[in-house]
């Protein structure tokens, strides 16, 4: 763990060095109208060097975010992180985040599900393809839309608002680094674990709700279509699709849990404004969600 802290400290000092490097590359401000003559022409930074340095700085920030996310994941998987005080903090965050949002998330996903179910059913009946409606509903709703809705809901309602506390917290000790593992485990880890769990819980509840609504919309309030529904469900969820669905939901949860917190911590080092920190975290999270969804679509349908 000490090695990990040293590594994080080393990574944390990089932005300052990066800023000093960039400053060194900039021309000195002129203090005289006629600068002193020199024998050689003053060396101005070439545009390509400047771009390279900016690209390196951009990559460095991304790398630090990924690294911090990995540290958070390691901390989440380490039993030593779950001390009594940490467990209490995690439990408080979890109840505060999930209990309030479970109902609203369920209502939102039910509304989206009903709208899409009606559209799909009416369209399929009008084209004489009603036998494919249920399979399409399961694929569209349960496999694709509901997990995406859940992770976006958690990102907007839980992950980003919790960054306010993370970005504005001050270290107890003056020499404590923001990426200190102990501090991460105390402040960032509860938020990360809570957000990850919230995505998993809301996605599971919403998927079950969407499946139930799809069944009752297609077959009506009867148990007669249960065998047909079960068979269609089993046909859609073959081993490959099930594996990809589980992996996608897990990656959504981990991304929503780790990435915004890591982004906020890294941006806090550069003393960025709070709003900028939140927006940056949300944009980065959306980009990663997009990547995961694209990879899932490629795996499922290509």
């Amino acid at each position, binding site marked *: 763990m000490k090695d990990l802290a040293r590594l994080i400290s080393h990574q944390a000092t990089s932005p300052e060095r990066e800023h000093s490097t960039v400053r060194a590359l900039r021309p000195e401000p002129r203090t005289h109208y006629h600068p002193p003559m020199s024998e050689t022409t003053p060396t101005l930074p070439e545009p390509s060097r400047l771009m390279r340095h900016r690209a390196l700085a951009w990559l460095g920030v991304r790398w630090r975010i990924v690294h911090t996310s990995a540290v958070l994941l390691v901390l989440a998987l380490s039993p030593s992180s779950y001390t009594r005080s940490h467990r209490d903090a995690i439990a408080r965050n979890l*109840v505060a985040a999930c*209990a309030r949002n479970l109902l609203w998330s369920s209502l939102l996903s039910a509304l989206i599900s009903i709208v899409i179910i009606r559209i799909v059913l009416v369209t399929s009946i009008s084209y004489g393809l009603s036998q494919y409606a249920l399979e399409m509903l399961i694929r569209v709703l349960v496999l694709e839309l509901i997990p995406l809705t859940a992770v976006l809901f958690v990102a907007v309602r839980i992950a980003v608002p919790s960054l306010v506390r993370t970005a504005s917290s001050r270290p107890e000790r003056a020499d404590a680094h923001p990426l200190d593992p102990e501090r991460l485990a105390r402040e960032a880890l509860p938020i990360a674990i809570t957000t990850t*769990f919230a995505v998993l*819980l809301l996605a*599971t*509840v919403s998927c079950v709700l969407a499946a139930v609504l799809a069944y009752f919309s297609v077959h009506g309030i009867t148990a007669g279509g249960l065998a047909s529904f079960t*068979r269609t469900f*089993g046909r859609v969820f*073959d081993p490959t699709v099930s594996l990809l669905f589980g992996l996608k939901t897990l990656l959504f949860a981990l991304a929503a849990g780790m990435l915004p917190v890591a982004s906020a911590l890294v941006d806090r080092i550069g003393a960025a404004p709070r709003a900028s920190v939140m927006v940056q975290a949300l944009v980065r999270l959306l980009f990663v969600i997009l990547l995961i969804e694209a990879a899932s679509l490629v795996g499922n349908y290509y």
Partner: protein
Amino acid sequence: MQDDSSDPRTSARVAFKASLLIALFVALIGVSVFYLLFARGLFEETQTLVLRAEDSEGVTVGMDLTFSGFPIGRVREIQLAEDGTAHLILDVPTKDARWLRTTSVFTLTRGLLGNTNLRAYTGIPEDPPLPDGAERPVLIGDATGDIPRMLTETRELIANLTKFTAAGGSLANSLDHMEKFAGKLAGSNGALAALLGDDAAGKKIGAALDRTNTLIARVDALVAKADARVFGTEGLAAKADAQVFGTGGLLPEARAAIVELKGGLTDARESLRKVDAMLVDAQAITANAREATSDLGALRAEVDANLRKLNRMIDEVNRRWPFAREVEFKLP
């Protein structure tokens, strides 16, 4: 929040709620996984059925095998066999395998929309059940198989239509001819010129009609003359009437002849009546002759009997007549 966390009762309540949420999540995941495994048929006892197909296009793993519209099996695997045919390996639940018999027929049909269906048909339900691991051929019916032929024929039809309607084609020529015909119809000589195709011929037809009219007028005059000669006061009709119906005409004489014929017929009827009486007599005579013939048979039998008696008497007389014997003595 720090104050809340310091309270042990609040902490315990929060921990309990968090445990409930985690338990809800674990329960949902557990039920979902169990339902998924159940839907995938993990808890069903199945038997294997191998279907041989020439072409496995459209068949996917997980596809249903239906019987009377109900799914009774599922494709587990598709293999390319050594002989180049596709082997579709299906899992059929044991409870549904009773619908499959040794004589069952399996078909693979492809619809126009590209949907593929795997169906089973059982004609004789009393046949022995299909054994586990049975291998059967599958008949392929492709609704889209006729599409290339239809496309070719449609293409030929369109080519013919194009040729037909092209400039200089049959339709264009016909329309040109129709236009010329309509022009001639609207011309001075009208339909005759259009039908005969020549204005001079039309004029000839007109002249012929004029001459026909003249001829008809002459025929009318001729008919009037003939009428006067036939039906006039001194005409043929009046003379014929006098000869037929006048005194001493043909009709009174015919009436007298008919009266005489009537008398002759009465005499003939009397003669016939006499002939009938004679015939009755003849029948009676014939009956008597038949009876006499039967008496003759009996008489003959009696004569035969008397003759036989006489014969026996003569034989007896001859036997008893001593002189009649030829006595011959022969000395030793």
